């Protein structure tokens, strides 16, 4: 049981949020969007996620906060309806739920590792590598833009059919992940701080040992 889809959603959202923040206010090309990523500062955004699953008669809605600190730190903290946290810190990947049990170290998980590799590839603004891992389609009708990613990697493709990220100007509005079984997750972003300067104290609280990805 690996939160691969969540990696995709959380990390891609952070990257695109960061990219949108630092790049051209209305990127007309994928190159411009990617170039902005490398210059990204810290990002903090609130999110509302809606999951539509074949298993459920009604969607599940969750709310939380995303934190992203270049080059490779991310924390997806879910606050409602249950508290949980997914943390990526370099090569460390950890999940902690509300039960108070010990955090689950996913660093050794091949699927998690695979995604982290993709994550760093995107962050580096390495478009050739991105194209190698995904079918990439970028559409722009300034000020609105849309990036569609379809994984080439078999492991990722087993779960994820596509990731679609949409924004307007410098702000990403929505991310939509469609899974192979038809389940769909849509994340709406609000109160986005695109150039959040994290203090050492904040970084320690968010990513420091023990409290890393704390659920409180």
């Amino acid at each position: 049981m690996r939160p691969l889809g969540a990696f995709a959603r959380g990390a891609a959202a952070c990257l695109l949020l960061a990219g949108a923040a630092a790049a051209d206010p209305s990127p007309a090309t994928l190159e411009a969007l990617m170039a902005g990523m490398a210059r990204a500062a810290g990002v903090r955004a609130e999110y509302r996620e809606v999951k539509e699953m074949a298993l459920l008669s009604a969607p599940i809605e969750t709310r939380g906060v995303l934190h992203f600190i270049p080059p490779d730190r991310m924390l997806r903290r879910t606050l409602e309806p249950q508290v949980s946290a997914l943390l990526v810190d370099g090569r460390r990947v950890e999940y902690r739920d509300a039960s108070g049990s010990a955090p689950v170290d996913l660093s050794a998980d091949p699927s998690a590792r695979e995604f982290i590799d993709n994550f760093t590839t995107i962050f580096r603004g390495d478009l050739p590598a991105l194209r190698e891992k995904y079918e990439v389609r970028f559409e722009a009708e300034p000020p609105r833009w849309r990036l569609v990613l379809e994984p080439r990697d078999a492991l990722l493709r087993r779960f994820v059919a596509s990731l679609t990220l949409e924004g307007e100007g410098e702000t990403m509005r929505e991310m939509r992940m469609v899974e192979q079984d038809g389940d769909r997750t849509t994340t709406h972003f609000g109160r986005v701080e695109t150039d959040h300067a994290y203090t050492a104290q904040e970084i320690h609280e968010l990513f420091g040992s023990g409290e890393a990805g704390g659920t409180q």
Partner: protein
Amino acid sequence: MRKLALAAALLLAAAAMLAYVAPRIEFGTDIASFLPDSGGDESVLLSRLLRDTELSRTMILSVGAPDEATAVASGRALGEALRGHPGLAWLRSGPDPELPRQVYELYFPRRLLFLSDAPEREIPALVSEDGLRERARQLRQDLASPAGTLLAEVAAADPLGAFRALLERMRGAQSTLRVEQGQFLAGDGRHAILFLATRASGFDTAAQKPLLRDIAAAFAQVDAAHGGALELEQSGLARYVVAGEQRAQGDALWIASLSFLGVGAILLGTLRSAGSLALTLLPGVFGILITTTVGLLYYGRLDGLTLAFGTTLLGLTIDYPIHLLNHHAMSPLHESARAVARRIAPSLGLAAGTTAASYAGLAATSLPGFRQIAFFSVVGVAATFAFTLLVLPAFLSDARRLPEGSRRAAAAFAGAVLGLEPRRRMLTLFAIGLALASLAALPKIRWQDELSALSAPDPALVAEDQRVRGRVSPFDGNRFAVAVGADADEAVARNDLVYEALRSSIERGELEGVRSLHDLIWSPDLQDRNWRALAATPDLAGRVERAFAAEGFRPEALRPFREALAAGPPAPLRLGELRASELGGLAGPMILDLGERTGVVTLLRGLDDLEAVERALAALPGVRLFDQQSFVTGVYREFRDATVRQMLLGSGLVLGVLLLRYRSLRLSLAAFLPSTLVALAMLGSFALLGLRPNLLHAMSIVLVTGQGSDYGIFVVDSADRARDFRATMLSLVVSCFTTLCAYGTLALSEEPALRAIGLVTGCGILCCLLLSPLSFVLLARRPPQPDPEHDA
């Protein structure tokens, strides 16, 4: 001409035996040879545990590097360099990326068999209305979590969460190390970790030495490629065994050189002839060759310890040729070597018989290695004796005469003994006093059975081992719980009970945690009970659908679960199937193959209350807590007990042989008592001085008394004739000092085991010589008379 033909025949025979022996001889020691092979299931089980499990064959390599990237690169490079080494059964430097798929394929179809390890109690609660509603609420929360995407994939077929629970348990059976780019790393990120298992036992030094060399060479290359910034540290039994052997060999080399020079000097000084020196050594050499050949033909393999001890014993039979040469050289000129051999044959035969008898008792032990030693000793002594009497005389010139100096020495030694005759009463009282004092002290003797007393491991190796293990696993490498069953199913069932008992111990704080096969497999019975508990619930699929629908699930989406129930129970997962699967590597280290039986090992962590955990396991059939240190101590205690019993039994046999030969209690006791007194005195001294003798001290005392009884026999048999008595006394002195040079020099060794042998052999044989006059005194005869014929 005849002599030449005999020499040629001997050479041919020696060459043939050498050609047979050389390719088959091994100097390695197999611990199994010195572990019980009968006399109780538990002993045999634990022997196998120590020798056969992967635990004894597993090594851990830790490559320290200045940073994480270098650690990863160097770990991978070392792994690649060693992968495929013929001495390795396997090598793992990182997790298998295929593991999730393998787990899914093996377990998902059987998920409902692994729902609960207390199915009769837990499953009814789980499938109750409240239980199912609670489970549905939990699943809904989980689906909302980051893990939801993957959960959704299996939740439709597994709404009860059996597969997820199974995965959570399996997490405990996997490594807790970090992984970077497929390479295991210690928590500090600066040590790459590799696990490997050798094909050969960790005790097999012949196989382990080249492997350790190859590991060092492979590391040197990797290190050079990284500018010498790396540090290799290792953990594993093989390193202790090889280091111990090398240390012993290093000592043995210079001590052997010293011994050889000393023995050569003494014999040359006495005989003044290189030819005579060669003849003195010849019976021993042939004795070893013959015995090794016969031993290999009979056993197929001789253990290194058997060879070492047996060869040592045969070294003591140098008495026989010394005796023959001295008696021959001091005999009248017309007496041929063959005639002298015939004359002293009864004495030598008796000496050989008592020596063989004193070791024959070892054959009665349950230790195969001891039985080999008994065989080697009996055959070897017989061969040396026969060679001395039948072959050696052919090479002795009738005109041989002892050098004048040696003659004078012989007379002086004999005179010194005869000089004690007037003090017979005082000597007798002294002997009685010594015997009584020693006997009184014996109850105070405290044996030292810890392995460290025999061979203290290098503290640096121990520290390195602990550092490496500390980086890798929190589990105790020396303590395990072991469950044994008549077959694999029973062993796994008993392991289920072990798991349950240890879980209670963990709850009580007696133990921090376990790594158990229970995380990977349950007994077929427990799996079956899970299914039966589910099947006993009326309309389970409908109940689940209704309860889940009430919590926001679409009942039709749970069709895979309904279909799984309708399909009936899958075949239970059995140990054989698990081992044969791609996941077999996870289970392997926890399984013991015991012939028709199977054992399952549970690793323990943070054992705070040994006795409490022992109590928790005591009531379980076929289960026990294994403590490696106490086990090894127990094994060596058994060795030592066997040796002491052998000492008593051997002494009884020797006395019996003497009584048969002499038909006189006085003569028999005269030959027997001095060496027995030496054994008593040595044991008494240990007790009085507060020293703790160990197994090797005991074995050395047996060795000494074997030779000491020869001294008594020679004295008794030659006490009637002055010339013979002088030759005997010279032989005893020469024999004693060659023994001192050959074995007493081991006392100079830094190796505790060799030092123990050297000290006891050296002191003991000297005491045997000093007390040998007692044999004469106890005879209560007149001094030997000149033999007109022989002394002419």
